[in-house]
Each structure stands twice: as structure tokens, then as C-alpha cells.
């Protein structure tokens, strides 16, 4: 070990396993069990980054998730991870880390020139300076981002796999410190399903770095025994390296488990992270507390650390963070740090305590260890550039509002600071419990629980181990009891520790004319003066001050600085902290990768379901190009060798109109409607009459929303007096089913109607064109295909071999056409039979594009393409489909609303372009005069537009204001590229206007 700041003994690192790593290109070594931060400190490296705005040198400040400074980029290329906290990165072989925010290098940072101009960059600087003139913002923004970017996002696809799981438990314990483990043990012993999640690699939390005793043994031994017992309980799941990052409604919590980030790149396999979506009946929050700093001038120098972090580095990681240390505190907890430093061989030059006196047991222990305790004093400033070199002390007045006396300078290379503790109330707050300020302990404590949840231990402000164990045991027992278990664990014993009260101190008063560089939010370079300025400028709400100053906006979300900032604002406004309140704690607690959130729901196969018909493989084998229609993948067109899409669609259309085409119509929604009131029900659902429909016949119907707008359409067939078979649009199937069930279940429960969706059961082939009857009759037995005896809109049942088929004479092209339906397990059999029988007529498979052209040639609308939820049946010019005789149907009353009968509603028309070969883009806006200045008054838009090979020119359907009375008018489609397409308004039927072809 060449780690010059590594202590000779102790710690939880593995001294036999040396790990090589690089930081900013320089090679170092550490030990297994180190974090990147502890390994850097073991090598004497404090300077790890530059601040966001002024590019001031910054060092490692903490030992956990709250770290504002040691933000690093890990690895390069596709494995790169931006903005990792060095304090949470487990060291692994060949780890390659570098500082963010330094250009060109950490030691020589060009941007640090900003720090000389810091007085020119106050709060709201960006708003005030760069927002004017407005057009320059984009340029400024580019430069600002270059100067300030935090880390670099990967520029290659993420190579990793991300797992996820849902989980259910009786008790979720968040935090695996002693309080969490104790609660988990109480619940687990009772037999409850327990999940314990902890963000670190080891359970035990801060206690791993303490000297406490539990149940008469050392704390780390108690932790080990407890983990061993928990591991043996079959219903207990222990999740290390797992951050609970969100607490949502009804005890739904999200955990990100890191599976491989601690391993060398070459040893990683399987998923990188696993997202746990947990529904817990009870939650115990044992998230601990974070130490907060005290704010004073130049409190941001490398070597200024949180006192508890110093203890953690010494006791857990066997690192000596400094040789000559000053401890600065306003409470008792940092006294232990002084002792830890001394036992690690550091010289503790002074323990500076803001309190006038300190006489607790530990204070006396410190004094008797020969450490000088300087009461009623504060650190007012520091010196040093890349590492602290000295501190300046002054006396603090009794009221804490001023400093006085001679300035005393003490040389040091480490300043350990404790401003007291802030319970980690993030998750509690996310659960709806509003954090409440308590003056007596100077903490925000968890508020009243709104969910089945309790906070215990330090998370509840209970810093004393004995009391924390009591709370945790009670919470574990009661959570399990609430789930019906008999939980009666007794409290593990620990000694009570008497502590002197804290002296709240947020911002050290400055001597007259001095001060400045008093950093509240170290990551975002927000100083006390920025908050004071915001208050002077009239900001009152902490939420507004946060946004104006950017306090708490960094990747650390202000975990160390926010409370000091609130206190400074409160003081400036002359109000209490309770009145000032906190900013909102939102998920995520620490940053979560996009990978964890996306999981494996990626790419064409798994992002969204792809639904396929029974004939899908045939379409693939026959060269179809596919398009997505809702979740369905449908054949779009079937190009032959050398054909463009245009060629293929023209060929498919002509073949269908001149001989016979075949189309996979399986995706249409299909609903069986049975029961004595079926016809009565359809009378309400559709706009036309259904009572008088003969058995064996079908009818086309429009379904409206209650607002009178077209919602769906399709043909419904009467199979028996009380039995109908409905077709819906492909995209509307699920919605129509839910819509009809809703009326039956909530409005008309007395109606005797049952609905069953059979969309997936049937495979449907539409055989279309003058030769269609010849093809279908060659395949289907038992049906007379004479066009007179089997008329349009009739249904017949026959057989194909052994398979019963239903044939409906329905047409969506104006041609003689049949839809052949068989159970989908025989779909391909039917399809290939039809293809075989059609060979002599050169049967041509066609896709959705030809379907669209064929129906547009006839002016048949597609709901959802030619309608958009604001189109009525009258707008479509299909008023014949509206019953004049029915007293009521869904949407009827809306048809006489003033807005629905407006004359200038957009109405469906046809368009024929002046140039027959120009196809207007769908969606193009239409105007009367394309030469008026922008914005031109728009009169409508094109909803469908194609080249029609059958007509020999382009055709379009459009919705145009008052369109029904504008036949013959010329309109224009001015396009974004400057082209203007001229077209004539026509009726929306372009082909076989007399309907001569429907009988073949």
C-alpha cells in the first residue's frame, strides 16, 4: 500500500486486496471496501472538482449521498456515467474516473477566472443579464452550458441491460442502519414479509463508523448477527446497493438496485440495475440523518469536511483525512470526531465550539484527551487554495449575532465542521407528511403520516442510539402487528448518552466590512449573499428564492445546504424557520438512470406490443412492407422486384378493380352482442334503425359520442333475433367495447344484453373485385354466391373443408366483395385456399395503402383519419345515416346544439388538383387566397390524399368550412416549402359514382 493517508489498522477495508484506479488520468491504488472518495483521500487527494459557476476548487466534503462537490464522470465511451458521487462509487479494479466541470484540467482551470467576477454574478444573474436582448439568448446559452455543464452524457447507445420487478411486502424498511435492521428484525421474526433496502454496499449505516455497544457487544458485531438472522428468515429480502428513490401513493415505493456498478467492467454480466416497484402494507423509514455544515467565509475550500464524514473515513475506511485538524461545531456530536482524529494519529489543534460552554461527558473526555476546546468561538474565514491552510477564529457574542475580539489564525490542513443534524425526511415528505420545524432540536422532523408509514431513529430526529432502538423495535412490532402478525420483540439494549443542547448556527456573523464567499449550496455556488439579495429584491417564498438563486437545483438537490439557506432567508426576512418552511421534497432522492426507468421496454419488439394476425407470416413470406395501425402490424403494400411503393399501390388498386384482390381484414374489432334487448341497445348506440333489420343481414352504422361527434363506424350483422355481430374500426375496438359496457353497466343495467369481444378469434380475408365471387365460391362450400340470392350486406355460413366459415358481403371499395371469416387457428389455411383458388384470376394481395386509395376513390371515410372528434355525420354529408324516427340515441340531442348546426362548420369535400399528378400532402391547410400575408385565414385541411391509378389523377378528401356549398370553387394548399397547390372542390366520390360495380 502506497496510500500515504491510510492508517495502519482498523477500518472495514480489505488490506489484502489492492485496487488500481485512475483519477483524471493519474494512477492510484486503493483497497477493496473503499469508495472512490475514501481511496482518493487515502492518497491525500482532496481537490476533486470545480464549482459550477465560479469554478472554485472543491474537495470531498461528505461520505454519502449528500456530496455536493465530488461529482465525477466514470469510464468512457458507451459505459460512461456522468455525475456520480465519488462518495458513493465503490472502488473496483481499473476504475477510470475524472472530475466534471474542469476545463482544460482540474489543476489549471481557465474558467476559474469567473471567481474573480463573482461580485458581478449575483442571484438571478442569468435572468437579468442574458435574457436581453431576447434573440441573443440562444448564443449566451451555448456559452453558459459549455462553461458550466455538469458531466457529459454518453454519445453511444447504452450497452447495458436493465431489470425490473414488482414486489409486495408487509413491511418495507428503508435504510439498513441499526434502526432499520432492528425494525426489520422485529417484523421479520414475527413472520412478516419484509424488504430491507439500503443504498450502501454494507448494512449498518453510520453506526459502522461508531464505537457504540448494542446488546453488550460492539455495534458492528450486533449488525452482523442481525443480518445473519434476517438472511435466514425466508420471508425477508435484504437489498444492499438499493436506493429507495421515490415514495408514491398508497405505499408504492420505487427502489433502484445497482447490480454490477461495483464490479470491474470486464467482470460485469447480466443486468446493470434493477428497478423494484414495491407495494408495501407498512413502511418503516429509517433513512437516518445527514450532518449539515455551518456557513462562513470561504467555507468551500478542499479540506473543509463534515465532521461525521471525517469519522467515517477514519473508522470505516481507515483513512486519515488530515494531519493537523481543527474541529468546528455547535453541538456534541463532533467531539467524537476529535477523538477519532486523535486516535488516527492526527493532531487536533483546536475544537472550536460556538456554544458558551460544553460540559457533557464526551466534552470532558475530549478535554482530558488533551484537546483544546475553545468555547464561544467561531470560524470566520479560511485560507488556502487547493487545500485549506489555516482558519481564522473570533469570539461569538452571547446572542450569536456578532463576532468580536482579536482574530486568531490557526494553521491546519483539515477543518471538520458540524452544524447539527438534519433527518432525511425526503421520503416521508414525498409520502405526504409535511416536515415540521422543531426549534428545540433545530430540525425539520417528519410530519403527521398520511400513509401507513412511520419514521424511526435519526430519520425521526432521534440521534441517541438507545432511544432509536426503542423506536425501531416499536415500529417493527407494530408494522407487523398491523399486518396480522404477533410481533413482540423486545428492545435491544444500549447505553443512553446525555448530550448538551445544540446552539443553532447557520451563518457565522461577519466582522464589519468582511464576509463574502459564504457558500450555502456548494454545487450551484449559491452564497448567503445571493439569498439575502433575493430577499431584498422582494422574494418571500422559499420556493421562489430556490428558483431565483438556483439553490438546491444541483444533482445533490441541496441535501447539505438547503436548511442553512432557509435559515438565512428566515433571518433576512425577520421570521422563523417554521414560518419560512422547506422547499418541496420530490422524487428522485438521488439521480436515477434512464435505463432503470425504461427497463427492457425498448426497440421495435418490446417498446409497445406488436399485434399480428394469423396470416402475418404469409405476408412476410410474400414480401409485404408493414405499417403500424394502433398496435397492429398490417401489410402496407407488397412490392414486387423493382417496384416503388407508388408502383405497387397502383398495381394493387388496378388489379382489384379489374379482377380480384385480397386483403387481410382480421384487425377490425369484432363484438358479439347477445340477449333479448340487443336490438334496442343498438338503437341507442348507433344513429340509425336496428329493430327492423332482418336476420342474416347487416347494416352500416355510425356511433357518436354524447357530444354528437363521430366516434366509430362499422357494419353490424344480425345473426338471430337476439344475436348481433358488430364490426368496429381497428383502432376503436377496445374503446367501443368499454363504451358499450359502460352504458350497459352504469346507465341501463336493466337491459338484457351481453357483449363478448371476439376480435382475436376470427381471421378475416376480404376478397374484392369483379372476380371475387368466383374465387370465394371455389373455396367456400354450402353457400349460393349468386349476386341476387346472396345480396349486398347479407351474411351466409358455409364451410371450407372441415372449417365452418362466415361470409359477409360487405364492401369498402365499391366493388363486389366478400369478407370470409374463420377461426384464426385456421386463418392461414383459409387465406392460402383463397390465394390458390384466385390464381387463375391473378388474385393480388393488397395492403392498407391500396385499401385507403380504393375507399377514398369512393369517398368512404376512415374514422380517425377523415374525422378527428370534431366532425358530425352531417359534416361528412352522410345525414341519411341519422334516424329521423328514433326518439333518442347517444349524441342525438347534441345534433341540434347551436355549434353543431353552424353553417360554417368544416364539411367533407373532394379535391381534384389542377395538376393531375400532384398529390397534396395529408394535413395540408387550405386557403382561399395564398397570396395574403401570413397568417393566412385557413378554411380547412386535407385529411386523405392519394394518387388514384383508377381515376388517372390525384384525389383528396378535405374538411372545408361550409364545404358542401363550395363545389366548383378553387382552393389552395400553400406548403411550408413555398409550393402552392391549386385544387378544385368536388363531391367526395371520384370513381363509379353510380355504384354500378357493387354487383361485379
Amino acid at each position, binding site marked *: 500500500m502506497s496510500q500515504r493517508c491510510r492508517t495502519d489498522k482498523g477500518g472495514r477495508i480489505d488490506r489484502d486486496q489492492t485496487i488500481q484506479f485512475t483519477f483524471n488520468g493519474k494512477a492510484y491504488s486503493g483497497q477493496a471496501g473503499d469508495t472512490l472518495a475514501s481511496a482518493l483521500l487515502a492518497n491525500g487527494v482532496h481537490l476533486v472538482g470545480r464549482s459550477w459557476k465560479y469554478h472554485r476548487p472543491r474537495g470531498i466534503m461528505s461520505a454519502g449521498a449528500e456530496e455536493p462537490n465530488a461529482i465525477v464522470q466514470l469510464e468512457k465511451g458507451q459505459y460512461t456515467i456522468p455525475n456520480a458521487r465519488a462518495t458513493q462509487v465503490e472502488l473496483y479494479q481499473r476504475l477510470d474516473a475524472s472530475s466534471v466541470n474542469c476545463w482544460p484540467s482540474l489543476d489549471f482551470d481557465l474558467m476559474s477566472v469567473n471567481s474573480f467576477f463573482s461580485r458581478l454574478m449575483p442571484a438571478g444573474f442569468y435572468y437579468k443579464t442574458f435574457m436581453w436582448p431576447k434573440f441573443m439568448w440562444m448564443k449566451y446559452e451555448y456559452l453558459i452550458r459549455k462553461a458550466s455543464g455538469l458531466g457529459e452524457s454518453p454519445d453511444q447507445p447504452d450497452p447495458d441491460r436493465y431489470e425490473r420487478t414488482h414486489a409486495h411486502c408487509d413491511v418495507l424498511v428503508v435504510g439498513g442502519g441499526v434502526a432499520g435492521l432492528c425494525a426489520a428484525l422485529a417484523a421479520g421474526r414475527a413472520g412478516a414479509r419484509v424488504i430491507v433496502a439500503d443504498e450502501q454496499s454494507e448494512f449498518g449505516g453510520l453506526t459502522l463508523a461508531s464505537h457504540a455497544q448494542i446488546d453488550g457487544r460492539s455495534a458492528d458485531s450486533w449488525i452482523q448477527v442481525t443480518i445473519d438472522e434476517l438472511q435466514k428468515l425466508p420471508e425477508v429480502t435484504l437489498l444492499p446497493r438499493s436506493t429507495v428513490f421515490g415514495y408514491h*401513493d398508497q405505499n408504492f415505493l420505487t427502489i433502484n438496485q445497482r447490480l454490477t456498478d461495483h464490479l470491474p467492467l470486464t467482470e460485469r454480466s447480466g443486468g446493470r440495475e434493477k428497478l423494484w416497484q414495491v*407495494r408495501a402494507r407498512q413502511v418503516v423509514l429509517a433513512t437516518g440523518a445527514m450532518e449539515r455544515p455551518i456557513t462562513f467565509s470561504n467555507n468551500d475550500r478542499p479540506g473543509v469536511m463534515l465532521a461525521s464524514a471525517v469519522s467515517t473515513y477514519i473508522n470505516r475506511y481507515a483513512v486519515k483525512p488530515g494531519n493537523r485538524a481543527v474541529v468546528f461545531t455547535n453541538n456534541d456530536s463532533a467531539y467524537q470526531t476529535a477523538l477519532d482524529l486523535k486516535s488516527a494519529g492526527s493532531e487536533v489543534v483546536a475544537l472550536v465550539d460556538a456554544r458558551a460552554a460544553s460540559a457533557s461527558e464526551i466534552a470532558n473526555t475530549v478535554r482530558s484527551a488533551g484537546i483544546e476546546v475553545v468555547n464561544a468561538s467561531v470560524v470566520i474565514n479560511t485560507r488556502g487554495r487547493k487545500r485549506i491552510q489555516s482558519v481564522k477564529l473570533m469570539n461569538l457574542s452571547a446572542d450569536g449575532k456578532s463576532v468580536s475580539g482579536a482574530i486568531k489564525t490557526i494553521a491546519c490542513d483539515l477543518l471538520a465542521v458540524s452544524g447539527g443534524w438534519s433527518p432525511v425526511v425526503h421520503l416521508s415528505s414525498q409520502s405526504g407528511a409535511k416536515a415540521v420545524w422543531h426549534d428545540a432540536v433545530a430540525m425539520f422532523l417528519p410530519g403527521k403520516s398520511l400513509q401507513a408509514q412511520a419514521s424511526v431513529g435519526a430519520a425521526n430526529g432521534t440521534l441517541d442510539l438507545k432511544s432509536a432502538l426503542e423506536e425501531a423495535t416499536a415500529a417493527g412490532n407494530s408494522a407487523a402487528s398491523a399486518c396480522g402478525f404477533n410481533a413482540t420483540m423486545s428492545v435491544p439494549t444500549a447505553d443512553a448518552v446525555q448530550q448538551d443542547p445544540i446552539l443553532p448556527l447557520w451563518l457565522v456573523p461577519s466582522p464589519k466590512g468582511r464576509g463574502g464567499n459564504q457558500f450555502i449550496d456548494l454545487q450551484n455556488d449559491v452564497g448567503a449573499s445571493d439569498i439575502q439579495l433575493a430577499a431584498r429584491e422582494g422574494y418571500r417564498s422559499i420556493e421562489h428564492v430556490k428558483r431565483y438563486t438556483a439553490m438546491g437545483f444541483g444533482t445533490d438537490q441541496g441535501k447539505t445546504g438547503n436548511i442553512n439557506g432557509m435559515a438565512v432567508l428566515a433571518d433576512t426576512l425577520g421570521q422563523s424557520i417554521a414560518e419560512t418552511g422547506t422547499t418541496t421534497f420530490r422524487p428522485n432522492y438521488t439521480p436515477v438512470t434512464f435505463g432503470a426507468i425504461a427497463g427492457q421496454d425498448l426497440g421495435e419488439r418490446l417498446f409497445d406490443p406488436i399485434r399480428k394476425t394469423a396470416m402475418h407470416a404469409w405476408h412476410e413470406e410474400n414480401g409485404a412492407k408493414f405499417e403500424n395501425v394502433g398496435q397492429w402490424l398490417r401489410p402496407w403494400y407488397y412490392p414486387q422486384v423493382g417496384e416503388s411503393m407508388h408502383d405497387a399501390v397502383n398495381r394493387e388498386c388496378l388489379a382489384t378493380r379489374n379482377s380480384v384482390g385480397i386483403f387481410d381484414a382480421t384487425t377490425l374489432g369484432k363484438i358479439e352482442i347477445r340477449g333479448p334487448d340487443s336490438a334496442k341497445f343498438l338503437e341507442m348506440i348507433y344513429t340509425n334503425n336496428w329493430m327492423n333489420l332482418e336476420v342474416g343481414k347487416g347494416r352500416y352504422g355510425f356511433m357518436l359520442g354524447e357530444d354528437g361527434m363521430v366516434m366509430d363506424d362499422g357494419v353490424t350483422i344480425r345473426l338471430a333475433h337476439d344475436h348481433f355481430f358488430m364490426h368496429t374500426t381497428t383502432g376503436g375496438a377496445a374503446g367501443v367495447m368499454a363504451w358499450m*359496457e359502460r352504458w350497459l*353497466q*352504469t346507465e341501463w343495467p336493466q337491459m338484457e344484453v351481453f357483449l363478448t369481444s371476439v376480435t382475436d378469434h376470427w381471421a378475416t380475408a376480404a376478397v374484392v373485385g369483379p372476380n371475387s365471387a368466383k374465387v370465394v365460391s371455389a373455396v367456400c362450400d354450402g353457400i349460393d354466391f349468386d349476386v341476387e340470392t346472396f345480396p349486398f350486406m347479407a351474411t351466409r355460413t358455409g364451410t371450407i373443408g372441415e372449417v365452418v366459415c362466415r361470409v359477409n358481403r360487405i364492401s369498402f371499395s365499391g366493388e363486389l366483395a366478400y369478407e370470409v371469416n374463420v377461426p384464426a387457428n385456421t386463418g392461414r389455411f383459409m387465406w392460402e385456399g383463397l390465394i390458390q383458388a384466385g390464381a387463375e384470376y391473378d388474385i393480388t394481395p393488397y395492403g392498407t395503402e391500396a385499401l385507403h386509395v380504393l375507399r377514398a376513390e369512393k369517398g368512404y371515410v376512415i374514422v380517425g383519419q377523415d374525422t378527428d372528434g370534431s366532425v358530425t355525420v352531417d359534416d361528412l354529408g352522410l345525414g341519411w345515416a341519422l334516424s329521423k324516427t328514433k326518439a*333518442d340515441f347517444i349524441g342525438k340531442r347534441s345534433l341540434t346544439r347551436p355549434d353543431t348546426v353552424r353553417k360554417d362548420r368544416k364539411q367533407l369535400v373532394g379535391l381534384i388538383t389542377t395538376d393531375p399528378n400532384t398529390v397534396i400532402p395529408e394535413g395540408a391547410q387550405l386557403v382561399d387566397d395564398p397570396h395574403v400575408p401570413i397568417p393566412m385565414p385557413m378554411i380547412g385541411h386535407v385529411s386523405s390524399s392519394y394518387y388514384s391509378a383508377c381515376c388517372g389523377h390525384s384525389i383528396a378528401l378535405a374538411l372545408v368550412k361550409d364545404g358542401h356549398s363550395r363545389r366548383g370553387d378553387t382552393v389552395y394548399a400553400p406548403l411550408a416549402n413555398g409550393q402552392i397547390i391549386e385544387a378544385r372542390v368536388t363531391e367526395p366520390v371520384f370513381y363509379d359514382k353510380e355504384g354500378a360495380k357493387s354487383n361485379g
Partner: protein
Amino acid sequence: MLLIECPWCGERDESEFSYAGEAHITRPRETKNLSDEEWADYLFMRKNPRGLHREQWLHAAGCRRYFNVERDTVSYQISGSYKIGEQPPSGEKV
């Protein structure tokens, strides 16, 4: 992610359900006799309260039944579910 109690299937994850808007809106009879205003009231006007709200949900990925939920729009706490035609658990008549 809410945990919603289906009156038939019990507590299930919100992702199994779809929202169906405010509950207890009854379709008027004799719609042709309604004034435009009365019809618009049925069609468009919703309570959108701050606090207790009765709303319809569909157990879309489950038993496909519609039912009512009483939910606080501020805290998102659900006081209970009840079948169509029943009264909400809070006891407040609707």
C-alpha cells in the same frame, strides 16, 4: 401509482384500471325536451372538487366492471370503492 380496490377483485395496481370521469352523472331522460343549457350541463359541466371526489373507474385489465371510487383529490387517499348504484363510503349522499 394508486392502489385501487375493485369491488370484485380486491386491491389491484392502478395500471390495471382506466379512469372514467366523475361518477353519479345520470343521463337525462327525454333528451329532446332539454334546453341547450341543460344538455350542455350534462355534457360538459363537472365538479372538479378540491377534496373528496367520486369517480368512475373501469377494471380494464381485470373483470371489466365499472365501479365508483371515492378519492381525495388533494391527498390522493382513497376512502373506498362501491358498486354502481351504491352510496359512497363517506356516507355523504350523492
